[in-house]
């Protein structure tokens, strides 16, 4: 069993979509482990761990039956013939440092809610539509393609007239604290993270290539069509899809663009140097100015965000907090520069309030975090 198979098996088990045999296997294995010989260490501070954690739990809202809420997966599974899954991360982020002396407060008081689904669709004629406000139904009809919004807020394109008029471009963008998903005319799926945008044509018919332009971070599942290659353009690079699942992370202004491939093959070309590399699944290319390096990574972890999780395998505090500032729409203030380079390993749900992440960071006893309004202040402990 590969790690990915293990990963997916558990997801199916907790989702309720596993087969009888799969459940049986996991149940038996789990029970055998639970009955195991391992001596349990009893930590000295069990009681205080318990007491500290309680208020953080009670600070959460409860869910009521009226509101549809229990979805283990943040995104539904779409039937896509075959796709490219890659992460592209590039674009600008917003945070600044301040030297003002703020009074510290308890992390739990004043907690901050995570982002939610939402986006702004800018049509070719310049008209802006805020996606969450439009009720399900048609948003616009443009050059032979019907754009509508499904019940759960996803934008769907359906081709109504194949030999339509000229091709027009829409731009779908998210601000801080927003994320969205769109199904393009060819059936391809794109998830957009916070502070990102995707410019795409309303119809792919009659074009040699399927071109889109990305800023920020997008996860792509591209429908197979060998005769019409799919390309993702960002300022710094061009990704040509040879068919599958990938994530493009193109956030930072200092041109550190990461493309992570999960399935299939992509060719990443650096726009300034002309260098190009083909990626295999499990590989990530990092483009910085004119250089490009390729390394092996935990690809599933890099796209954790589209599954509703933030997963870090030795990421620096600075990069983690950039993600936090975008999703939670907060400013991050560092009292000490040295802590920015500290690395962390953890995984949290994107639906948790920000205190959950801060608590995990503080567990290492090396930093302390406080929430002050919409600012997070981090200092060395």
């Amino acid at each position, binding site marked *: 069993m590969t*790690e990915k198979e293990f990963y997916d098996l558990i997801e199916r088990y907790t989702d309720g979509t596993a087969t009888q045999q799969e459940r049986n296997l996991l149940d038996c294995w789990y029970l*055998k482990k639970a009955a195991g010989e391992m001596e349990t260490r009893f930590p000295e501070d069990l*009681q205080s761990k318990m007491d500290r954690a*309680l208020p953080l*739990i009670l600070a959460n809202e*409860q869910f009521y039956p009226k509101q549809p809420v229990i979805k283990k997966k943040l995104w539904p599974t779409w039937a896509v013939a075959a796709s490219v899954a890659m992460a592209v991360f590039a674009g600008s982020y917003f945070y600044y440092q301040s030297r003002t002396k703020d009074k510290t407060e308890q992390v739990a008081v004043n907690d901050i809610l995570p982002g939610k689904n939402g986006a702004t669709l800018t049509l070719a004629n310049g008209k802006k539509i805020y996606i969450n406000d439009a009720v399900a139904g048609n948003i616009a009809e443009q050059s032979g393609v019907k754009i509508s919004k499904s019940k759960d807020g996803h934008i769907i394109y359906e081709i109504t007239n194949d030999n339509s008029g000229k091709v027009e471009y829409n731009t779908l963008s998210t601000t801080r604290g927003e994320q969205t998903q769109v199904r393009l005319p060819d059936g391809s799926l794109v998830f957009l993270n916070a502070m990102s945008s995707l410019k795409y044509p309303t119809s792919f018919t009659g074009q040699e290539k399927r071109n889109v332009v990305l800023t920020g971070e997008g996860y792509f599942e591209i429908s197979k069509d060998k005769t019409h290659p799919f390309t993702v353009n960002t300022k710094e690079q061009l990704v040509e899809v040879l068919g599958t699942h990938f994530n493009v992370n193109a956030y930072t202004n200092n041109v550190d663009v990461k493309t992570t491939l999960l399935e299939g093959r992509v060719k990443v070309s650096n726009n300034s140097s002309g260098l190009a590399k083909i990626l295999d699944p499990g590989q990530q290319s990092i483009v910085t100015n004119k250089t490009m390096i390729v390394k092996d990574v935990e690809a599933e*972890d890099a796209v954790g965000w589209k599954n509703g999780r933030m997963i870090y395998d030795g990421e620096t505090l600075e990069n983690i907090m950039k993600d936090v500032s975008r999703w939670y729409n907060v400013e991050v203030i560092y009292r000490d520069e040295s802590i920015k380079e500290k690395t962390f390993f953890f995984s949290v749900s994107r639906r948790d309030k920000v205190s959950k992440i801060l608590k995990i960071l503080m567990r290492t006893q090396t930093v302390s975090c406080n929430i002050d309004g919409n600012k997070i202040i981090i200092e060395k402990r």
Partner: protein
Amino acid sequence: MKETPLYNEQELLAMIAKGDNNAFTILYKKYWPILYLHAYRMLGDENMAEDAVQETFTWFWQHAPMIDLKSYPSSYLYGAVRNHVLNLMRSAKIREKYARELSAFVQEDHGLVDEELAYKELVVLIESEIDKMPPRMREIFNLSRKDMLSHKQIAELLDISESTVREQVKRALRQLRASMKDSPYLIFVFIQILR
């Protein structure tokens, strides 16, 4: 200080479903230690075990208003902790180790267990953590075998007397501990005993 009257777990669940912090605190304090010890046994890491328990109680608190009030809170907690432990096993650091363990397990002939039985055994195993605690610690958490309602639950589920359950559990745990690593079939012998 006002004395808290004693409620049974279903009454507590009804109160928690209405947002009662104190009722939640009672269940929290009661189940936290054994859920933590179970999670620690599975994950081998204090922080992860804490995460699993935290996520379990958070899930429970948030979903209480949606839970069937006729059921036992503990069944939700035990099922949830298993799911959260499994979820944490997926994290990059330890995933490889568990994937390998599961692969090896697949090779063994582990037979079939139906879900209900698997759950009952899970209950017993989690609660056996109490017996494995040093006495002083048990006192600190005010846990004694006879206080845990789940013996009664098991008895009801299996249609046998509570004392039978207690005796069987003691005997079975002794056996399990002694020979678990040699023969996985003992899990099923154990279940037969409970029948």
